[in-house]
């Protein structure tokens, strides 16, 4: 499983590169608001229900991916992996910060059926980020698998949330040192008068 986790982002970057070349992947997002789907010659398609998200740092959002088997045979067991790619070089992405669970196992999907999965994304830093789901066969069939399939990328624009009172701690943060400083000053004054 650890090896697959390592492979996921690498494969994901490669697939995203393919996504940027028109024609290699059957469909790309039609508009800024709609979701889209990716497909392979095996008939597996991955779609997402959103294509464009604006969020503030720390404000979680969810989206749903749907893996559909349009082929004539049942799929092997699959692994779905959530990936993040920074679209501006200044944003550092630590995937663990952006989603608590990024890899799930999908049981075989019968022809004409689909499997859905809801993903939670926590935008941790300001910036433009592409979010997408990659589906690959589970380990026994990985070496002989046809090209992996990825969903269209969701463009996430994250703005910085600014709060002077994060979590409501500001009163305590100011009051405790202030109280101690006043107590200390009072002590000194009292001793000075003696």
């Amino acid at each position, binding site marked *: 499983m650890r090896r697959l986790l390592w492979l996921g982002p690498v494969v994901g970057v490669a697939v995203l590169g393919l996504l940027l070349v028109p024609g290699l992947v059957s469909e790309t997002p039609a508009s800024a608001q709609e979701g889209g789907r990716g497909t392979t010659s095996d008939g597996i398609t991955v779609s997402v229900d959103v294509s464009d998200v604006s969020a503030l*740092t*720390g404000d*979680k959002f969810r989206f749903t991916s749907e893996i559909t088997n349009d082929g004539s045979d049942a799929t092997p067991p699959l692994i779905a992996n959530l990936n993040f790619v920074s679209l501006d070089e200044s944003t550092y992405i630590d995937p663990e*910060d952006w989603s608590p669970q990024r890899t799930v196992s999908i049981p075989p999907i019968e022809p004409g059926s689909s499997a859905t999965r809801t993903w939670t994304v*926590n935008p*941790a830093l300001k910036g433009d980020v592409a979010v997408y789901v990659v589906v690959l066969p589970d380990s026994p069939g990985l070496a002989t698998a046809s090209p992996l399939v990825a969903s269209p990328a969701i463009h996430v624009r994250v703005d910085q*949330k600014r*709060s002077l009172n*994060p*979590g*409501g*701690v*500001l*009163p*305590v*943060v*100011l*009051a*405790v*040192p202030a109280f*101690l*400083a006043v*107590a*200390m000053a009072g*002590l000194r004054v009292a*001793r000075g008068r003696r």
Partner: protein
Amino acid sequence: MAAANDEVTRSQMASAPSTPGWLVVAGQEVRDLWLAGRGPVLVLAFSLLLSALTYLAATNKELNLLDQKDTVNLVMQVTLAVGVALALLLSADTVSGERERGTLEALLLTPLSPREIALGKLLAALTVWPVAAAVSVPYAWALRPGTGLFTDAVVAEIVVGTLVAIAFASFGIIVSTFASTNRVSLAVGFFVFVALMVPTQLPGGAAKGWLGDIFLRVNPLTAGAHFMDKVIVNNHTWSQEAGWLVAPILAALVAATAAVVVTGRLRLQGGIGR
């Protein structure tokens, strides 16, 4: 303690002959520390540190980079480290400080035994720990995710911190008894503290393996920090993690006993074997 304070101590002993000598010394030292000394300044600096830390932790929590339990644990762990360090450094100054300031001779001329003097000073140095723990409580309350965790966190901090503070303050006074200068005493105390503190900062994998596990369990600081971590972050019960309290308990008992034995040999001059 200044020479003037030694006279106060003598007069107090004369006026209250029934009061144990160590209590008189402790009372005078506490007044020196908290009314005229460094105590309030140290605690104010500590509260500023906790304020900055709490604000940053709350910001990270809002970004979902830190779990709420982690933020409470962070404040508790920093309080443990700073509170114990302050107790150690204050106790490391007790005897060697008097020796360096030339006031130890006057103190040894009082009717008190060296052990009583040392015990009183040790107790006074230890008062910094409960004050530090009390200062941390509002911060833990501000970050609390639920009353259950808040109570667990504070109680775990008090128990572990008290044990470790006794161990390190006792060690500090032992070093101070032998050190001929205050600089040596403080340097040795600080070095030992840092050496034992470093393993708590190692990444998780670096302390794995049977040797790493033994070292974590034997070192009272790492064992205490691990206990707090498990109780606060992982919601483990005290009985589940009781094994991690063995090192702090043993360290407190051994160091306090050693301090009692060693300070009985308190002499005007420092060094070993005089």
